[in-house]
């Protein structure tokens, strides 16, 4: 199945068949990371730039390893070292970097739409590594990959997403992706962080975790950021914990073989109790591991062998 996209900007407009192509391709990449020489030459000579305007360790490193395992050259460009702080516009920054003959730009930015904006004027492939509260497509792909690995399917699964849905790009991309795949999605969180209008995306909104967790196959906990509390979106972390934390007692109401996911970094004891995070039910480290294979698949499908040079 040909994968005919120049960029990966989000899940919303990615057809189901292409999502499946990425997941299937990622299956083949898992094995490479288990080899002694964890490297294949397919992207040799390609230059990839990690362009992160927001702090990130996990996603940036995951992309970096994925690129390196495909033999691409990758450099990291972080905001604090950039001219952006000296007043350079985003467009100038990107054009300057691109003039170093990059083949792909991996973008993280706190403003929604930035990868889309960059794709309108640059020549390289653009991969969205998180744009504000908008999308984080590779996270949703690796989440789906992990769920499929554990549950052997996505269709018909009951997925529960808990926490700050409003500000979460992970939640959005997962909602788009998993609903395309036929999963049944419910979200739980404080009302200010889970506006009821989310129902228009075909998901259920609930404010009672004990009720919503019943029969769930997958429980995805989101990180709660303490600065939200300063804006009165919830009164205190203590109260948040009481109502929305995943505890062993609550977890027992889910399906017997339910799994726990978290995009990280986790606040132990806040959104999830420490013993659950470390339990066999948690696939949090699997998510990180699978992230590399999924990102390798994305890089391969976008950059590998798609350049159609004129041969005659």
């Amino acid at each position, binding site marked *: 199945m040909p994968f005919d996209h120049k960029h990966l900007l989000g899940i*919303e407009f990615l057809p189901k068949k292409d999502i499946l192509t990425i997941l299937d391709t990622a299956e083949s990449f898992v094995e490479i990371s288990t080899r002694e020489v964890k490297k294949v030459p397919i992207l040799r000579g390609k230059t990839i730039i990690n362009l992160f305007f927001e702090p990130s360790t996990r996603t940036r490193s995951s992309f970096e390893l994925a690129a390196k395992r495909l033999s691409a050259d990758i450099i990291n460009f972080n905001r604090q070292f950039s001219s952006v702080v000296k007043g350079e516009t*985003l467009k100038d920054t990107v054009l300057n970097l691109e003039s170093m003959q990059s083949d792909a730009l991996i973008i993280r930015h706190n403003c929604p739409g930035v990868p889309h904006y960059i794709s309108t004027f640059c020549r390289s492939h653009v991969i969205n590594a998180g744009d504000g*509260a908008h999308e984080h497509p590779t996270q949703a792909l690796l989440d789906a990959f992990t769920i499929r690995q554990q549950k052997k399917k996505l269709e018909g699964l009951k997925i529960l997403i808990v926490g700050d849905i409003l500000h979460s790009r992970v939640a959005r991309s997962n909602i788009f992706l998993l609903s395309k795949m036929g999963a049944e999605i419910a979200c739980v969180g404080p009302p200010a962080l889970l506006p009821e209008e989310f129902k228009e995306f075909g998901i259920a909104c609930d404010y009672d975790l004990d009720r919503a967790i019943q029969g769930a196959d997958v429980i995805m906990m989101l990180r709660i950021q303490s600065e939200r509390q300063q804006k009165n979106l919830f009164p205190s972390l203590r109260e948040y914990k009481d109502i929305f934390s995943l505890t062993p007692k609550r977890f027992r109401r889910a399906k017997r073989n339910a799994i726990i996911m978290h995009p990280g970094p986790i606040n132990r004891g806040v959104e999830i109790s420490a013993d659950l995070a470390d339990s066999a039910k948690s696939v949090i480290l699997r998510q990180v591991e699978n992230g590399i294979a999924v990102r390798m698949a994305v890089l391969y499908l976008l950059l590998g062998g798609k350049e159609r040079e004129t041969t005659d």
Partner: protein
Amino acid sequence: MRLLIKNGRVIDPASHVDETLDILIDRGKITEIKPKIEGDGTKIIDASRLVVAPGFIDMHAHLREPGQEEKETIKTGSLAAAKGGFTSIACMPNTAPVNDSRGVTELIISEAKRNAVVNILPIAAVTRGLRGEEITDMADLRDAGAIAFSDDGHPIENSLVMRRALEYSRLLDVPIIDHCEDRNLSAEGIMHEGKTSLKLGIKAIPASSEEILVARDIILAKETRAKVHIAHLSVKGAVDLLKFAKQQDTKITAEITPHHLFLTDASLESFDTNLKVNPPLRSEQDVEALIDAIREGWIDTFATDHAPHTPDEKDVELDKAPFGINGLETAVPLLLDKLVNKNILPLDKFIAMISTIPAKILGLKNKGKISVGADADLTILKLQKEVIIDTSRFLSKSRNSPFHGWKLKGAPVMTIVGGKIVYS
């Protein structure tokens, strides 16, 4: 300098005239209106199959001079206005320096005299520096030539300050134009709060942010009996409040911009910074309510909220882009195509809303009408003229229009200000 306009369909809402008439202009005034006037040597304009209307008035434009001449100047803004069919435009005081003193008002007026091709009507600040704290010397500003007062761009958040300003404005019988926005609610919002903002994860401005200040202004208008004009009304809730107010004993008037009528928040899916405007583009239901309100006669006037920004300023990520849409050259074709030619608004009502009524709100006694002795400000329209909006041909210094490429039917073909043809 005499000018004779022959065979035009003259529509003057003030005198309920809609017939084919000749108009003679002499020394900037209309001197004769009759079915047939002989030319004898005067310059003649053949207006057959064209509509001759009293000059259009835009109560709400940002001309950026003094201080931000890279975006627009009084001269370029007036050229854009003339091309757009406007003979008079009121300019908001959020310049640098702010128009909160006689010196700035006089500067604008003298610059306009030197360089503008249409009438430039300065609106002065309600509070010093637009800070919402102390009210300006309104009488002095009025004497210098300010025709209304506004802190546009900023709401007057402190209700007591608003009340004091309204009380004082009664002394001068001038309107206070309020930009209704509760900044605590809108916070760092970029677009309308709704399904699209949720989907895109963009920080949002709720409808309540506008509604709360509209409600407050209505209550204060009632209490003070002052003239309040609501700028750029954009949500259904505010329309409902306006209807309530108009059934009470208040002097409330309101305007709507073309972009709030013909675009919705859903368009932001393109992340186009030219769609970033405050108040934000609203939902489809809001747009329907605005159109219904126009049809039912609750809305007084259209205003462009012409807000030019340079291409560089808009060629950034959405968060960084300034709010505002360039409107002078697109407003009339949009309104003619989408409202008049689609039979939502009769032509004479449209002309009343864009000329007669704003003249009345601003207290312009010799404008907004076609009658002997009135200023010879005329806008001539061709209802069947097809235009394609092309920002590269704007006379405005800026290009920030989301309507680029739109095909529209109906446009101004000639603009006459004080008896002089300033655009054709």
